[in-house]
C-alpha cells in the first residue's frame, strides 16, 4: 500500500515536471523529429491544398487567427478576435476589422504589416495562379489597410460567419517582399520562395528537399522570446503509415508521426512497446454511404445518375433507404476498422458539440434487423428464391462503390453481410483514390459521376461553421454533364424545404439560432435518407513519450502549437 502511494506520488511529480518543461528557453531542447508518411511537396499551401503541405507550412507561416484544440478561435498575429460585440465585425455584417499585434516581425527581421495581409489576398485571387485556397477568400470584396496595424475586410454580401480569410492553417499570411514578383502565372516559377517562405511562425526553413525531408531551425525573431523549445525540426516524409507508427512507437527513432491509418490491433501492439502513445482528435470527418437518388442502371449509358435517367427504381422509396440504415451495425464497423479513431454516428455534421444533433441517435445508432425487415415487408418488397427482395421486377441489389483502401474494403464486406440479412444484395467495387476523387470528367469511376447505386467515402468541412458544407445538398448543386460533373450534391438529393432552410441559415447571425438551424438541416438529411452516416472519424497521430506539449487538433493544423512542444525530462 505504501509502495503504491509512493508510486502515485512519483507519477504526480513526474507529470508536474513534464508540464513545467514548457518554460524552457528557446532552442534548448535539440532536434524535433517528425515523420509524415506522405512526403511534403512544397511549403506554399496556396499552390498545393494537400493536408501534408498545409500542416508542414503551419510551422513557418501563420494566419491572423487559428482554431485551438477545442475548435475555438484564438488570436495569433492579432490582438483579439473581431466580433459584433467588440465592434470588430460591422453591424450590417458587411465588413470586419483585424488589429495586428504590435511588434510582430517576419523571420528576416522586417516588420509584419497590414500590407502583407492585403498582398496575401491579392496573391490568392490573382487570375491564372490556380490558388488552391481560393475558397477561403470567397465573398471578400476588398482588403484594405486604414493604417499599417489594421486590416479591414469588406464582403460582397452580409457574412454571418466571417472567419474564413486569414483564419486557420489554410490561409496563412505570406510576405509581400518575398512573393511580390510571384503573382498569378508566375507563382510556380518562384521555387526558392515556395520552398522556403519567410514567416512569422516558430520555425524557419533551413533546407527543403521536395518529397523527402525538411530541415527547420528556430525563428530568431519569433514573438515569444522563450519559444520554441526545440532548436530545430526535421520533418521526414515517405513510406507507409504502419512503418511510420513503428518508427515512433517501437524503435523510437522519431518523436511524432502523423495520420496513423493502421489497423487498430496492430497499433495496440506497437503501443504496448511502451515508447509512445496515440493522440486522437475528432473533427468533422464522417464516413458515409451516399444513396443515389437517380437511376444508375448501366443500360441507360451516359444518362445514368442524371435527372434524365429518372428517380432510382428502389432507392427512391424512403422505406428502403431507412431499412438500409437500420440494418447496419455501426459499432462493429468502428471496432473492425477504426478503433479509437472512430465513433458510430448518424449525423453528417458530427461536431463541434454546439451543432451536433442527437435527435436521430435513438433509432439510427442501433442495428435493428427485425425493424428493417418489417419496413421492407410492409413496403411490398418480397424475398425471391435467391433471398434478394424484389417488387415489380425491381430487385434490391446494389452496386456499391468506394475508393481502394483496406479499411474501406473491409467495411464494404461487413455492410454487404449486414444487408444480406434483410434481403438486400450488393456487388462491391473499388477504384484507386486518385481516380475516384480525381474528378476527371472522362472517367466513369469518379465519385461525382456516381455510376453506382451506393458509394462510400469521407468528407468534412474546414473550421467549425457548417453553413457552406450544408449548402452542398442544395438542388442546384447536383453534378450533371451540363456542369461538367462539378457540384457537391453527390447523392442528388433535392428538397425545396431544405433549400429554403439553408437560405435562412445564410441570413442568420446569432450563433444559437445558427446552431439550431444547422441541426435541423443535418437531421433532415439523415431522416430523409440522403445518405447513411456511418463513422465519425478522428485523426490519430502518435508521439514519443519523450515529447511534451502535444495538443492534438482536428480544427486546424496538428502542428498548430509546435512552439509549445518540448522535450519531456
Amino acid at each position: 500500500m505504501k509502495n503504491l502511494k509512493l508510486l502515485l506520488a512519483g507519477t504526480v511529480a513526474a507529470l508536474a515536471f513534464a508540464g513545467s518543461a514548457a518554460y524552457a528557453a528557446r532552442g534548448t531542447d535539440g532536434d524535433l523529429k517528425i515523420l509524415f508518411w506522405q512526403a511534403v511537396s512544397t511549403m506554399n499551401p496556396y499552390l498545393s491544398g494537400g493536408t501534408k503541405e498545409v500542416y508542414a507550412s503551419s510551422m513557418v507561416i501563420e494566419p491572423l487567427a487559428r482554431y485551438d484544440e477545442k475548435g475555438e478561435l484564438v488570436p495569433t498575429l492579432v490582438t483579439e478576435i473581431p466580433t459584433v460585440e467588440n465592434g470588430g465585425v460591422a453591424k450590417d455584417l458587411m465588413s470586419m476589422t483585424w488589429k495586428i499585434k504590435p511588434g510582430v516581425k517576419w523571420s528576416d527581421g522586417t516588420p509584419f504589416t497590414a500590407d502583407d495581409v492585403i498582398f496575401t489576398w491579392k496573391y490568392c485571387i490573382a487570375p491564372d495562379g490556380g490558388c488552391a485556397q481560393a475558397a477561403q477568400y470567397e465573398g471578400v470584396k476588398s482588403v484594405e489597410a486604414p493604417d499599417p496595424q489594421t486590416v479591414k475586410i469588406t464582403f460582397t454580401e452580409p457574412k454571418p460567419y466571417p472567419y474564413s480569410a486569414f483564419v486557420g492553417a489554410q490561409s496563412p499570411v505570406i510576405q509581400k517582399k518575398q512573393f511580390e514578383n510571384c503573382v498569378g502565372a508566375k507563382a510556380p516559377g518562384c521555387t526558392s520562395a515556395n520552398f522556403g517562405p519567410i514567416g512569422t511562425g516558430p520555425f524557419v526553413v533551413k533546407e527543403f528537399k521536395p518529397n523527402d525531408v525538411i530541415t527547420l531551425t528556430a525563428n530568431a525573431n519569433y514573438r515569444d522570446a522563450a519559444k520554441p523549445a526545440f532548436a530545430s525540426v526535421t520533418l521526414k516524409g515517405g513510406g507507409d503509415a504502419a512503418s511510420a507508427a513503428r518508427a515512433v512507437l517501437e524503435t523510437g527513432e522519431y518523436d511524432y508521426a502523423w495520420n496513423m491509418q493502421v489497423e487498430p490491433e496492430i497499433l495496440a501492439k506497437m503501443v504496448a512497446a511502451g515508447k509512445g502513445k496515440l493522440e486522437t482528435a475528432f473533427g468533422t470527418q464522417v464516413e458515409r454511404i451516399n444513396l443515389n437518388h437517380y437511376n444508375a442502371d448501366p443500360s441507360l449509358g451516359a444518362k445514368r445518375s442524371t435527372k434524365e435517367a429518372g428517380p432510382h427504381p428502389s432507392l427512391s422509396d424512403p422505406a428502403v433507404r431507412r431499412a438500409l440504415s437500420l440494418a447496419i451495425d455501426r459499432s462493429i464497423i468502428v471496432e473492425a476498422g477504426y478503433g479509437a479513431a472512430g465513433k458510430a454516428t448518424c449525423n453528417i455534421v458530427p461536431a463541434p458539440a454546439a451543432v451536433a444533433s442527437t435527435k436521430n441517435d435513438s433509432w439510427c445508432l442501433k442495428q435493428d434487423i427485425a425493424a428493417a425487415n418489417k419496413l421492407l415487408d410492409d413496403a411490398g418488397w418480397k424475398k425471391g428464391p435467391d433471398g434478394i427482395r424484389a417488387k415489380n421486377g425491381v430487385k434490391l441489389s446494389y452496386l456499391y462503390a468506394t475508393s481502394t483502401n483496406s479499411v474501406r474494403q473491409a467495411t464494404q464486406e461487413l455492410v454487404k453481410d449486414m444487408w444480406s440479412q434483410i434481403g438486400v444484395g450488393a456487388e462491391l467495387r473499388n477504384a484507386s483514390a486518385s481516380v475516384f476523387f480525381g474528378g476527371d470528367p472522362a472517367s466513369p469511376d469518379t465519385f461525382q459521376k456516381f455510376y453506382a447505386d451506393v458509394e462510400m467515402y469521407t468528407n468534412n468541412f474546414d473550421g467549425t461553421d457548417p453553413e457552406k458544407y450544408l449548402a452542398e445538398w442544395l438542388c442546384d448543386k447536383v453534378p450533371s454533364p451540363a456542369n461538367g460533373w462539378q457540384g457537391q450534391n453527390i447523392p442528388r438529393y433535392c428538397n425545396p424545404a431544405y433549400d429554403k432552410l439553408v437560405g435562412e441559415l445564410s441570413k442568420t447571425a446569432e450563433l444559437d439560432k445558427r446552431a439550431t438551424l444547422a441541426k435541423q438541416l443535418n437531421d433532415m438529411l439523415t431522416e430523409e435518407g440522403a445518405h447513411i452516416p456511418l463513422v465519425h472519424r478522428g485523426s490519430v497521430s502518435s508521439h514519443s513519450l519523450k515529447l511534451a506539449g502535444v495538443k492534438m487538433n482536428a480544427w486546424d493544423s496538428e502542428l498548430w502549437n509546435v512552439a509549445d512542444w518540448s522535450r519531456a525530462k
Partner: protein
Amino acid sequence: MFTYTLRRLLFAIPTLLIISFVIFALLDLAPNDPTGDLPLTIPPEVREQIRASLGLDQPFFFRYLYWLQQFFINEPLNILERMTGWQFGDGDRMRVLSWATRSPVVDLIVQRLPQTLWVVGLAYVFGVLIAVPIGVISAYKQYSIFDQIGTFVSMVGYSVPTFFTGVLLVVIFSSYLQWFPSVYDTNLVVTDFSSFVQQIKQMALPVAVLSLFNASQITRFVRASMLDNLHQDYVRTARAKGVKEKSVLLIHVLRNSLIPVVTVIALGVPTIFSGAIITEQIFRVNGLGQLLIIAVQGADIPLVQTLTFIFAVLIVLFNLIADVLYGILDPRIRYD
C-alpha cells in the same frame, strides 16, 4: 563496329520519339488527376482553376509538343548555361515543372540520383561480386551440398518479393535487435568516421535486401552458362593436354561463360537508375524509385513522363552497349 554503332544510335532517335509519344498518350489516358489527392473541402471550381494553371485545359497535342520543346530544347540549354555560364537568349525559358512541387523536374532528379546510385548501384555491384563465385562453384560441383544450398537460397531470393524481405529485416534488425535504423536519414553528411559508420549502418538493410535479389538472379545465369561450357570439347582438350584444373576452370571456362553474363549485367544497369521502387519506399531512401512512385500516386504527369522517358533512353542505350560488348568479348561475332 563504328558504323554499326552509329547506325544504331541514329535508329534510336525515332524509337525514342515514338516511346515518348506513347508514354505521353498513356499518361493522358490514365484516369487519375493531380487534384485527386486534395481534401474534398476544396470546391470543384477551385480545382478547375488549379487544373487550368497546370495547363491541363490545353489540347493534348499542344501539351505534347510543349513538353518536347521543354525537354529537348529548354532543359539542355539550361544545363549548358549552368555548365558554361553563357547566356542564350533572355534565359527566361519554361522548364519542365513538376505539378506537385512546382519545381523543375530535372532539379528533382539531380537531387535524387546520388542516393539511388549509392544504394541500388552498390547492391548491384555486391550482387555481381557474390553471384559470380557462387555460380562458378555451384556449376563445377553440380549437385553437391554447396550447389543445393546455393540453388535453394537463390530460389528463395528470387521468388520472395523485396517488400517482404525488406519488412522482415526491419522487424528483426531495427525493431527487435535495434542494430540498424529503419529510416534512411537523407540529411546525413559523411564528415568523419562516426558519420561514415552511420552511413554504412543506414545503407546496410536496403543494400542487403537488393543484393540478395540481384545475386539470386545473376547466380542462375553464371551457373547455367558455366555448365554449358564445362561439357564442351575444348575443355576436354585442355584437360587432356594436362592444363591445370584451376586454369581450365578460371581461364578457359569462366572467360567463355562470362560472355552472356556480361550482357545480362549490362542490360540490368538501367534498372539501377530506375531505382528499387519498393525497397526505397520501405526504407525511405530518397531515390529515383521513390520519386517515381510518389509522382505516379499524385498524378504528377510531367515528372512521371520525364522520368520514364529517361529510363527509356537508358534502356535503349544499354541495349546498344550490351550488343557492342558482346562483339568485343566474342571474336566470333562481327556486326559489319
